[in-house]
């Protein structure tokens, strides 16, 4: 199951100049999104808020990706949303809450963030699908490389 039409880069043995260039372009796009994503997570300093925000944005990006350049998901999805949100921080928060407030409180917070993430991700997808119907992406080809 692959919902993200991501390019296959670097995986195969056939690593010619063309695929090396493609890989380097991909990595630049990912870095371009990862820098603002990580800085925003650091500045907001509230993991639940950025995790829910990232879930919403990624849902929206995926729903609006059809007909747009590859950079759409590489910069926005893999780079920005991937770096903005953090799984390890979520698990660490669960661990600290177990020690601070006990099992049930910790699990309740964990579950709340999970349900919130699902809700905001679905909300972003719904909004994206609506926008895609209303204003179909047309800039597609002019950015393709």
């Amino acid at each position: 199951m692959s919902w993200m039409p991501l390019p296959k880069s670097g995986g195969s043995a056939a690593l010619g100049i063309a695929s090396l260039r493609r890989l380097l372009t991909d990595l630049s796009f990912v870095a371009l999104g990862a820098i603002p994503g990580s800085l925003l997570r650091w500045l907001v300093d509230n993991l639940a808020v950025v995790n829910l925000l990232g879930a919403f944005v990624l849902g929206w990006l995926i729903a609006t990706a059809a007909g747009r350049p590859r950079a759409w998901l590489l910069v926005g999805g893999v780079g920005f949303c991937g770096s903005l949100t953090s799984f390890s921080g979520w698990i660490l928060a669960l661990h600290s809450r177990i020690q601070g407030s006990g099992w049930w409180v910790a699990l309740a917070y964990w579950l709340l963030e999970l349900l919130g993430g699902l809700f905001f991700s679905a909300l972003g997808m719904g909004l994206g699908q609506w926008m895609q119907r209303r204003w179909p992406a047309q800039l597609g080809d002019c950015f393709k490389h």
Partner: protein
Amino acid sequence: MIPSQALLVAAGAVPGAWLRFLLVNHLAERLPSRPWGTLLVNLMACFVLGWILPVLDRPGAPPGASLLLITGFLGSLSTFSTLMVELLTLRAPGAPVKLALGSLVGGSLALMAGLALGR
């Protein structure tokens, strides 16, 4: 925002995101489905986080190492948003519940294993 601190976060975040991108793409061709790759990268980040936390807590740990490695690298390596989308889009019956439980149990175990190693 102190520029030198922001630089540390960004300098850790870029290789973290690159590693996630390359590993997930690499694993997607070898594992039955994409969520396996994301899960593996997430668990890896939990393990390293548990291992590195006590190490950076010791006196004499270089200042800024936490921003570079934890906020920057590990924060970017692991992802919550992709997991949410995968949970929403998995079609096989029971698969979303298994992935959520696997993330919870696996992430906690990986973190604790890391903590045990780092102490």
